[in-house]
Each structure stands twice: as structure tokens, then as C-alpha cells.
């Protein structure tokens, strides 16, 4: 274990090269519905228990199944009403279990990025070879069922190893959603030297963090989303920002929570200068237009501060 995996360099949030998003937009806004499959009886992992209650954890399993049976359709139609194409964080096994959901999203031209095989199979304890196998399995499976190889990764249940970024970049991925260190895309260092970046995904705006971990009221979640947008939108005038709403169809799509989400999304998309987009489009645009200047600015600031030049 190491004190820091050195995935990124310190890069102060001032005087950065100015990002302008397509169409002169000041904020890139994306919604990332997690579409997950949790197993009722997953194998044990020595580092993390999949379920808090003994088998069968009816409550934990069944509310997640609710997301796919009931919640997904609601969230998909809500996003459609507001002209948003979801960027799906996908448990790849869902391609086999529930292809109906994949087809419905594909019809709306949504993006699919990898979220592992199942949200009950963790990266913890896997050998490098096993983790590579899992990453490639998920990418192959998503490509086979959607026609396009995923560009992004959110590790299953946010479980990582020291080599997760390296392995995903080696498999051809270009962005990660696993890092929460910034409000703009940043370069991520991988051992193979690939041009690989982090896209802001936001833990704080994540509905499961809001509802399950922080246990907040639905309308407060809605007002947090609006506050988060207001500030990033204002700052976007001097340098384009990114706002993400990561969702789960078993949280936001409950009947008592949808109104809060819809109001916030209507508010956000009602502004001018908002690039309503997907994770892949943000990553590709940043890589094509700002990656090099970001790397150069990080190097310049480090040197100016007397840091090592390695």
C-alpha cells in the first residue's frame, strides 16, 4: 500500500488555460444513470461484504431490482423530456440479464460506459491478470451488445486496485469517473503513458450518497443540485466547468423523489450556455482541445513553484 498513487499532480484552480465548450458554452452538463445488477447470492470477497444482512438480503436486493423493473423507465423518460442523453454507468452483465433496457437506451443514442460486470463483484484482491480479464470482459460485452466499445470506467461499486487506471487505459479507455479531485477534466497518469483523463462525476451530487449515506430530504437534494449548478455556471465564464448528476434508478425514480430531480434538471437545462452532453463527448473534446495545454500548464506551475521537474 502507498500513501498516494500519484495518479494526478497538484493543479491549482486558478489561472488555468481557459476552457470553452462547444457553442461557446461555459458548463458541460451530463447525467450518468447507473444501471446496475446486484446478485442475490454473490461469492464472498475477503475485503467487502456484498450485503449487510445474511442471505437472502431481501431488502437490499429487492430495492435495487426495483430500479430496473420500475425506476429505469421513469428516469429515461424524464431525461428524454429535457433533451438529455444519459451516459450509462453499466454493470455489463445487465446486457445479458435485461437487454430490453439496453435497447431502450440505445434507441435514444445514450452512451454506455463500463461499471464492471456486476456491482457485487469487486476489484479488491484480484490479481492484475484477473482485473484485466474483468475489465476486458465488461468492455467486450458492452461493445457486443451496443455496437460501441466503452470509453469510460467507473469501477464496480467504486472498488479499485493500484492498477485500475493503468489497466483500463491499456484496454483502450480514455476516461475515468473514479476521481473526485476537481471540477474540470484533468490528465491522469498511467504507466503506459496513454492520454488518459478524469471527468468530474461528483460524489456529492450522487443520489445514493445524498439519499443513503447523507440521508437528505428529496427537496433538499433538488436545491443542492441547483446550488451546485449555479456556482459552476458562474465560474464557467472564466473557464469551462463540468457538472454531473450521477443517478441510480432505485433512488431518484421513487415516486416521492422524482419531482425534486425534474425541477432541478428543468432549471439547469433552462439556462443558455449549457452544453448538455455525455461523458464521452466531454472526454473527447477535452483530449482534442485542452489536454496538451493542461499538461503544459501543470508542468509550468510545478516548475515555477520550484517543484521537481520529473
Amino acid at each position, binding site marked *: 500500500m502507498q500513501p498516494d498513487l500519484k495518479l494526478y499532480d497538484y493543479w491549482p484552480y486558478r489561472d488555468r488555460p481557459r476552457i470553452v465548450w462547444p457553442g461557446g458554452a461555459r458548463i458541460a452538463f451530463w447525467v450518468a444513470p447507473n444501471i446496475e445488477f446486484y446478485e442475490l447470492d454473490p461469492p464472498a*470477497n475477503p475485503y467487502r461484504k456484498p450485503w449487510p444482512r445474511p442471505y437472502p438480503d431481501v431488502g437490499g436486493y*429487492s430495492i*435495487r431490482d426495483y430500479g430496473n423493473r420500475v425506476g429505469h*423507465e421513469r428516469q429515461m423518460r424524464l431525461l428524454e423530456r429535457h433533451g438529455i442523453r444519459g451516459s450509462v454507468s453499466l454493470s455489463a452483465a445487465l446486457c445479458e440479464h435485461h437487454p430490453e*433496457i439496453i435497447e431502450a437506451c440505445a434507441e435514444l443514442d445514450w452512451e454506455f460506459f463500463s461499471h464492471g*460486470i456486476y456491482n457485487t*463483484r469487486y476489484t479488491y484482491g484480484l490479481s492484475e491478470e484477473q482485473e484485466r480479464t474483468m475489465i476486458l470482459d465488461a468492455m467486450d460485452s458492452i461493445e457486443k451488445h451496443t455496437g460501441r466499445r466503452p470509453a469510460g470506467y467507473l469501477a464496480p461499486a467504486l472498488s479499485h486496485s493500484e492498477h485500475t487506471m493503468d489497466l483500463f487505459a491499456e484496454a483502450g479507455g480514455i476516461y475515468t469517473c473514479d476521481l473526485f479531485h476537481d471540477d474540470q477534466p484533468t490528465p491522469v497518469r498511467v504507466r503506459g503513458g496513454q492520454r488518459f483523463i478524469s471527468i468530474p462525476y461528483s460524489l456529492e451530487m450522487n443520489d445514493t450518497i445524498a439519499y443513503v449515506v447523507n*440521508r437528505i430530504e428529496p427537496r433538499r437534494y433538488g436545491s443542492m443540485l441547483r446550488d451546485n449548478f449555479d456556482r459552476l455556471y458562474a465560474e464557467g465564464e472564466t473557464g469551462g466547468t463540468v457538472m454531473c448528476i450521477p443517478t441510480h434508478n432505485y433512488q431518484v425514480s421513487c415516486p*416521492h*423523489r422524482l419531482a425534486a430531480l425534474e425541477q432541478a434538471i428543468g432549471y439547469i437545462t433552462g439556462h443558455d450556455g449549457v452544453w448538455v452532453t455525455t461523458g464521452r463527448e466531454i472526454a473527447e473534446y477535452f483530449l482534442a482541445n485542452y489536454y496538451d495545454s493542461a499538461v503544459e500548464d501543470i508542468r509550468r506551475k510545478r516548475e515555477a513553484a520550484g517543484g521537481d521537474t520529473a
Partner: protein
Amino acid sequence: MATPPDPDYLRYRHRRHGMDHQRYAWSQLHEREPVAWPGGARVAFWVNVCVQFFPLNPRGAPFTAPGGMSMPYPDLRHFSLRDYGNRVGIFRMLDAFDRWRVKPSFAVNGAIIERAPYLLSALRERGDEIVAHGWDMDSLHHGGLTPMEETDLIRRSIDSLEEATGRPVRGWLSPARNESPLTPDLLKEQGIAWFADWVNDEMPYRFLTRAGDLWAMPLSNELEDRFILMQNLHSEESWVEQVCDACDFLLKEAAESGGRMLSLNLHPWVLGQPHRIARLEQALEYVTSQSGVWPATPEEILENPSFRA
């Protein structure tokens, strides 16, 4: 060095179309045939009240139920506060249900019958639907029981209620909604027709057991008073808002998709408090005054032709 998981950790035995088990068929709510409620109603409004006994000396197998004792023995504060619900709070709630013409079901622990016979006879006289809720809140159904032990728990719970009310018991809610791998099979074998432990749907659906199908009834955990007020520590005002928002949403969805259900699972020891009862009244007033809302019991809901055996 990391301890690796089992070498088979990346084998996926159930990676195929549908569910990863045999308990029910994969089906999305919006794909199903629309359900028509009586009188053209759009939303069936089901209120279930839990009448529970939390023993002072829990074994906690395999865990202590939410609401159970949490202080060193004898935890009189929590013990007596739970009793408060069955002595005081529930009568406030009954008045509220009558005022707003809501017909709740009551999920009753078998142990309540000896502890509060007056309450049981009051419910019998009202003619409310009684649902078996296990023996008590420390008699959880879990894989550590033998099938015979679990069958006995189920049988005792049902028998005591049937004896006290003189009516057959058709519905079941497990204490803490916990189950053993066999619970649904044993429930069906003991004559139960529907249960409400699983929260994966918002309409009744067929649940498969070795003895035939059960109906799984949707009883939201996310909207329940205990979850929102005691676990999430949301305000009472927020609970009302959430119920009203849910009602509005479901009425709107039902207009396009066919009948929906709004279910509230309530606890007299939570909402029956003097400072909270007005919030229940407010929620009941709002929901029952919406056009298209049909206050209904599980029995009435399952009489719908869509849910015929």
C-alpha cells in the same frame, strides 16, 4: 500482499436473460397490461399499520430488528416507547383513518394478542384486514432456523391471529422484512396468499414457490414513517411532502399507464406521537381528497381480475 478471493470469483453462474434466481419472472412495470381499478380510480391507496412487540431481552438472531432494544438491559426507554404505540398512538391513528375514510390493514405480531387483547378485539369489531407479522420483533425469519422451526413460527403467528379475529389470515409481512431462503415456500404451504417483504415493484406480481404462486404486494420501505423520520431523521413536514409528491406523481403516471398503487407502511410508535399525528392527518387529507384515489385494502386490490390465480 492482498488475499485473493476464491479462484472462481470471476465465474458468473447466472449471467443470462432474466433474474439470477428462480423466484419471479423479469418484467418491467411499464410493459405490463394496464390495470383498471374499480370506478375508474387511478391510484389504489393502501395503508398498512404495524402492531409490534419488541421484547426487552432480544437475542438479536441474526440481528436486532430496526426499532429493537439498543441500550443495556433493561432498555426500558425503547421498550416502553414501542408499547406507547399500541396503547396510545394507535387510537389516534384509528380516529384519523376513520375521519378520512381510509381502510388500513394491520400487520400484527402474534405476541400482541396476549399483551393487548383489547386492541385485537377493537380491530376485530372494526372488521379490518389483519395481516400476520410473525411472532414478535425478535423472532426473525432467517437461514439459521430449521424449516420445522420456521414453519412453527409461521403457524403460531397465523393461528393466534385467526383465533383472535375469527377470520382467515391471507397476508404476511415478515418482522424486519427478513426472510430465510425458504420463507416464501413455507408461507405458501401454510395457506398465505400474499406477502409484502420484497420492495422491487409498485404493483402486485407473481412470486414463485415450491407450493405454488404467492402474490408479492408492494409496500414501500422508502416512504415508511420509521424509515423517513427515525432512520433518515427527515422532518415531519418533509414526510408529508414526500407522500404528497408520490401521490401526485403516481396519479399522473396512472393517467397514461393504468392503475398504480400508493402504499404507506406506518408505525403507531412513530406517527402516533402527539407532535406527529397531525402530519398523518395532513397526508391522509391530501391523498384522499385527490380525485382518482381509491383507499383500498390488500384483499380488495387482489380481487382485481388482473391478479386472479
